[in-house]
């Protein structure tokens, strides 16, 4: 099995995190549907994502959306820093038996799982006076096997959330 080298792991994990972070918080801020970001959206994953928000386990991305909705239309998440580590260079969980060009995909870091930690600020309500708090959020992203099929759907995400831990600080 040709594992990706360290340089590839760093590049793939940083870039995946970068893309994820900007898309995910944009989706939250614009009240878009969150399901496509989670392994819940992929039939290849038998388990749902583990979503823990302020100490409470949230069953589904839709439930999380509902919590976010309750924060009012002015709620806004802004990223101040993030960091990412490659965790498992060849993630296997839920993988199909035959991944197209598996050796190449694997060598290029296509199967890596990634831990992302984000620090940012959460503003509730509009305007300068609106209260702001810090938040820290950690995700574990895993490969979206559906994106490796022969004809992946357009705009399909390459990594999905398997684990999420959010805390307002």
């Amino acid at each position, binding site marked *: 099995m040709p594992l990706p080298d360290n*340089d590839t792991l760093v590049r793939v994990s940083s870039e995946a995190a970068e893309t994820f972070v900007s898309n995910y918080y944009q989706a939250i801020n614009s009240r878009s549907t969150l399901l496509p970001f989670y392994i819940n959206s992929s039939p290849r994953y038998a388990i749902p994502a583990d979503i823990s928000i302020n100490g409470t386990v949230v069953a589904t991305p839709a439930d999380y959306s509902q919590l976010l909705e309750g924060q009012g239309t002015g709620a806004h998440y802004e990223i101040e820093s993030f960091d990412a580590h490659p965790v498992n260079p060849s993630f296997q969980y839920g993988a199909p038996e035959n991944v197209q060009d598996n050796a190449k995909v694997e060598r290029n870091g296509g199967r890596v799982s990634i831990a992302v930690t984000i620090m940012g600020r959460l503003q509730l309500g509009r305007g300068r006076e609106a209260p702001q708090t810090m938040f820290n959020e950690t995700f*574990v992203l895993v490969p979206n096997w559906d994106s490796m099929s022969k004809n992946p759907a357009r705009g399909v995400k390459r990594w999905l959330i398997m684990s999420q831990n959010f805390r307002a600080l």
Partner: protein
Amino acid sequence: MAPRGRVGAPVGRETRSSAMKSKSAKTTRGGIQKRGRGSTRTDGDGDLDMDSAGARAKKTTPADSSTTRSRPSTRAAAAQSAKGPSRTAQNVLKHLTNGSASSLASRVSGGKGKGRQQDTSGLSFLRVGGLKQSKAASNPGGGLNDLLAFMERKSSSFLTGRHKRNIAIKKSHYVGDYVYIGASEVDAEELIKLNTFTFAGTPLEVVKVTDVPEKGNRAVESKDTQELRSRLQSILSQRYLGANKLLKLDSLASDTDLVTLGMFDNRERALKTFKGLMAICDGLFKTDKEKQDAIESISLAANNIDDVAQVEVVATTFPHLKNLDMSGNQVADIQRMDRWKGKFKHLETIFMTGNPIEAADPNYQATLLEWFPKLQNVNGIQLRTPEQIAEKEAASKPKPIPQNGPDFRDVGGVGENFLLEFFTCYDNDRPGLVSRFYDEDSQFSVSIDTRSVRNADAPPPMPWASYIKLSRNLTKINHQNARVQRLFQGANTIGDAWKTLPFTRHPDIKQELTKYIMDCHPMPGLVDPNGQNSIGVDGLIIAVHGEFDEHDQTTNATGKRSFSRTFILGPGKPGRGIIRVVSDMLSLRAYSPLPNVFAASAPEPAVHSQHQAMIAELSKQTGMTPQYSEMCLVQVNWEFDKALIMFNEKKMRSSR
């Protein structure tokens, strides 16, 4: 304060009404300025009565009155052809309603100190003297347009060859004896060359100025303008019922005073008149508060309004209005009210009876309730109570996602034991810690957030110097090399990185648990260190948030910092410890205390009202102030009987 006017101002009403319908240029002036006072002067914008005998008599320049042949000017011609009963009134209204808000405000409020900055950005200003003494001064518009045209034409004509361009005067206005003009810097350079040039028989004086006197300076406002203003003010004051804080602007078109002024001759004039009235209203009050207190209700009934755009200015002039009567108008559908949407944030009552909308749109009342958040009453029927409005407001307020205690789904105490050991060792024995939990595949990085929000009472943030070189904040570290270098891999590398980081002292987890928030849950899919399970092995992901005291050994600085640290733990490699750190991500920010997530997460409102009731009861029984009662209850953890006992004990002790 009521709209006041000089009620006793004498007005030649009878002459005016006859002049009104006349079309000749000579008689288009309204009666106001025809009552020859012999002291007619130019008004603020240089509008001068061409046919006023007084104006000519007053001339001091050699300009011969018999030869005041108007110089042909397209701009002036347009003005000349304007017809209407009261030209002055028209001018006043033009100035009241046109132009920028600042000129409007300054115009109406006069020297009341409400003056706002004019927008003069990017323009150079010149002061031009001589127009008043020139023959052109008797032209329509006081010759201002002729002067401007002359200056633009003349200065442009000096530019030849590739410099050829049209000089443009962007702004101009008359103040006292001078005309102030604004033009771009390069154009101003050319215009200033016209100094001493002869214009209409008079040498011009063109000088550069930095200060432009305010346009609406009362001192240079003509008597006519002042008089019309006072007429309108007088009309307004008759229509103001101070006791009811009501301004009755109903049936304006049948107001004989307004009609005789010629203010409602046609639709366009009527609209301008209305804007003028609003501007005068606005100018009567020194502060918004004063206005808000004086006028709570306005009636616009029976004004033939078919779109509120015609009276949109009511919403901007009286944003705090509480009651509005729109009955007996011609509003046909809700679109015709669209311009008021999102305005009148304090409107409580509206009357729409007698408008076609009543029959056309059965839902219009519901729409109005949506548009005006405080609206309770439509057409005299209460549709919602203040309580319902308050409830709706409360419901729309942002509600933070509730905080709960630790979500610590540990497996066999692995996470707990790791954390108990970790922070003590990190403070005291980093080399020992690294050798116990980290191996050649473990990863560590630190990222700093230098922009974090802090509590207002938090101490000033510590400097970041000791962390900058290591920080792997990927929003800032964009280059692949730096990203590789700042991800520390392997126990030795991590140990070396830790040596460069400042000394820390974390609070004792057992003693000060509330200074931490710790969440922990299992995660599958880690590399099996034994290489047996290809699917991977399960581990834990732990997120810890907290604070530590820092002592920077290089700068000797000490202080607090806040951190978040994520660990991914997995089973140890063969022949090593039981668990290993797969990943260790440290995030730092300026110190700010954590929310206490251990506080009772029971539904808060219930507890709160219960507490309030206990405070009230304790105050009643003991005679203590509510504050003392609360302190007392907090001390005994809200056990009412204990609070009473404590009170009695203290009372006995103090009476001894």
